[in-house]
C-alpha cells in the first residue's frame, strides 16, 4: 500500500531533450554533414548576395581580355568573350538555387498533397495516384524534360513575340522567363513522385502506430491527429528528402542547360558554362574546371548534408 507513495528514483536535473534537439546533437557530431551544411550555407549566401559580391557584371565583355587564365583580377579567368568567369559562376549559383528551390517547392507541394490523399483516403484515390507516380517514374525523366522543353519553347516564344507586337509591353520581351518557366514546370513534373511516395508511406506507417490508435481512443478529431501526431512524425524523413531533392534538382538543371534545353545563354548556368567549356577544354581548361568544380562541390555538399540528416533524424537501432 505504502509503495505507491514512494517517489521514483530521481533523474538528475537536466533540461528535457526533444527528439529534434537530439537530432541536432547527432548532426553536430557528424563532420561530413557539418561540412556539407557549411558549403550549402555558403552557396545559399552567394546566391542571395552574389550580385553585390562579384567584381564584374556577368554580361560585361572585355574583348581585350579574352580567354585569360585565372589571376587576381579574374579569379577564375575570363571566357572567349572576355567575361569574368568568377562572376558568371556566382550568377550560375543564383540560377541553380532559384531553380532548385522553386522546383523542389512545387514538387513538394504536389507530392505531399497527392501522397497525403493517397495515404489517408485509400482506394480508389490511392490506386490512381500510385499509378500516376509509377507512370511518371517509369518515363526516363531526362528524356521527358528534354522533350517538353524542346517542344514548348518555340510556341511560347512565338506567342510572347506576338503579344509584344500587339501590346508593345516590354514584359513580353523578357525571354529569360520562358527558360525558367519551362525549366520549373518540366522539372517539377518529373520531381514530385518521390515526395508523393514518401508522404504516402509515412502516412501509412504512422497511421498504424499505436500512438495514433491511442489518440483515436482519446476521441481526438482527425484534424488534430493529423496536425499534432502525423505531421511532426513524418517531418524527419521529409526533411531528408528535401535536402537530397535540392541537390538533385541543381544537378538536373545543369544537365538540361548542358544539353541546351534548360536555361539558355546569356543567362549564366553551371550547365551551359560546362557545355561551353567543353568545346575548348584542350586550350582553356579553366573554363570547364571552374563551373564543373563548383557543381561537383554543391552536389557533394548536398549529399553529405542529406546523409547526415538521415542519420540524425532517422536513427536506426538507438531508440
Amino acid at each position, binding site marked *: *500500500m505504502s*509503495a*505507491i507513495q*514512494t517517489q*521514483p528514483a530521481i*533523474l538528475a536535473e537536466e533540461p528535457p531533450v526533444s527528439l529534434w534537439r537530439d537530432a541536432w546533437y547527432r548532426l553536430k557530431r557528424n563532420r561530413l554533414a557539418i561540412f556539407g551544411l557549411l558549403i550549402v550555407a555558403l552557396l545559399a549566401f552567394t546566391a542571395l548576395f552574389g550580385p553585390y559580391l562579384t567584381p564584374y557584371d556577368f554580361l560585361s565583355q572585355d574583348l581585350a581580355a579574352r580567354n585569360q587564365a585565372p589571376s587576381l583580377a579574374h579569379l577564375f579567368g575570363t571566357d572567349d568573350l572576355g567575361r569574368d568567369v568568377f562572376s558568371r559562376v556566382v550568377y550560375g549559383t543564383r540560377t541553380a538555387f532559384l531553380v532548385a528551390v522553386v522546383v523542389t517547392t512545387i514538387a513538394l507541394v504536389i507530392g505531399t498533397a497527392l501522397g497525403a490523399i493517397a495515404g489517408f483516403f485509400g482506394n480508389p484515390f490511392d490506386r490512381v495516384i500510385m499509378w500516376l507516380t509509377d507512370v511518371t517514374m517509369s518515363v526516363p525523366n531526362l528524356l521527358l524534360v528534354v522533350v517538353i522543353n524542346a517542344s514548348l519553347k518555340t510556341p511560347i516564344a512565338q506567342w510572347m513575340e506576338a503579344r509584344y507586337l500587339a501590346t508593345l509591353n516590354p514584359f513580353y520581351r523578357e525571354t529569360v522567363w520562358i527558360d525558367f518557366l519551362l525549366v520549373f514546370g518540366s522539372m517539377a513534373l518529373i520531381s514530385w513522385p518521390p515526395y508523393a511516395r514518401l508522404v504516402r508511406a509515412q502516412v501509412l506507417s504512422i497511421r498504424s502506430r499505436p500512438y495514433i490508435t491511442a489518440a483515436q481512443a482519446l476521441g481526438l478529431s482527425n484534424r488534430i491527429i493529423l496536425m499534432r501526431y502525423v505531421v511532426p512524425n513524418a517531418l524527419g524523413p521529409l526533411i531528408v528528402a528535401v535536402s537530397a531533392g535540392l541537390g538533385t534538382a541543381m544537378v538536373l538543371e545543369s544537365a538540361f542547360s548542358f544539353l541546351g534545353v534548360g536555361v539558355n545563354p546569356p543567362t549564366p548556368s553551371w550547365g551551359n558554362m560546362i557545355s561551353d567549356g567543353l568545346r575548348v577544354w584542350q586550350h582553356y581548361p579553366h573554363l570547364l574546371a571552374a563551373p564543373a568544380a563548383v557543381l561537383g562541390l554543391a552536389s557533394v555538399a548536398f549529399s553529405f548534408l542529406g546523409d547526415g540528416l538521415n542519420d540524425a533524424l532517422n536513427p536506426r537501432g538507438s531508440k
Partner: protein
Amino acid sequence: MTKTGNRLLDVKGLTIEIETRNGSAVVVDGIDLHVDKGETLGVVGESGCGKSLTMLSLMRLLPNKIRVAKGEAHFDGRDLQRMSNRELRKVRGGDIGFVFQDPMTSLNPVMRIGDQLAEPLIYHRGMGRQEARKRAVELLRLVGIPGPEERIQAYPHELSGGMRQRVMIAIGLACEPKLLIADEPTTALDVTIQAQIVDLVKDLREKLGMSVVWITHDLALIAGLVDRVVVLYAGTVVEDAPVDALYANPRHPYTRGLLASIPKLSDQPTSRLNSIGGTPPEPGRRPQGCPFAPRCPLAMDICRTHVPKLEPVAAAGHHRAACFAVEKAQEAA
C-alpha cells in the same frame, strides 16, 4: 565453497561498459559467477540488470558499442577472454550452446531449418551434408517436433513460436555441449507453450547431463528447474544461493521484494500486491554506494556511501548476499 575442480564456468570481476554520448557507462559491474559441472543455474534480474550481456560477453557476442572493460571468464580451465578467435569459434556452438529469447528473429528467415541445424554439426563435427542431415532429423525428434523428416525442409516462418523455440534448442544442443545457455527462452511464448519448453529442457538436461544456465526475469518459472539462483540488480550480483534456500529464506531486500511482488495462485487473493517502489537506475546514473539503496526499505547511511560485498551469509552454507543489512534482514524475516 565448491571445489574448483568441479567448476565448468568461472567468471570473476566481469565489468562491461557501454559507449554513450557522455562517455562510457558501466552496465555490468564486477560480476562473480560460476557454474559447476552438471549444475543448472538460474540467473534472475529485471530488464537492464545486465544478465543477458554477461552471458553474451562470454562468447564475445556483445553488440556494437558495448565491451568488456575488465574481468576474466574461465571455461573448463581456459580463459575465454584471452582465446584466439579460432579457439573461441570451437567453443561457440561446440562446448557452449546458446538459446535466445525470440525464436522468430533468432532464426535466419531465408534458410531452411535443416540447414541451420546442420551448420554446427558441419563446422564442429566435420560432418558431411548427408550425415548432418540425418543427425538434424534425430535432433528435431529429440526436441519433440512431429514429422522431423519433412520439417527440416521448412522455413522458420512456417513453424509456430513454440516449434521455432524447439528448433533453437535443437541447434543449441546439436554438438552435445557441456553448457547450454538459455537467454529468456520462454519470454516470447504463451503460457501453455512456456510450460512445454520448461519440461523439455528439464528432460533433456537429465538425458544429456549438461550444465544449464537459464536467464530469466521470472523467479517463479525457474523454481522447479534450477539448482542454484544468482540474482542480479543493476549490473551486480546481490544474492547467490541454492534454490531452496533462496525461496525459503531470501536474504537480500531486493530478492525479498521481488519474491513478494510475484502474485501466487496459492496465497489468499489480496487486492494489493507487495511492490518495490521506484525504478532501477539507468546505466551511467547508478547511485553511489549500494545500487539498490534508493529503493531499499532497510537502507542505512552506510548503504549510500559504500558498496556492499557479496559475502557468505552467516551459517547458511553456500548462500551469499551483498547487503549491509543482512543481519537486520534476518531479524525482519
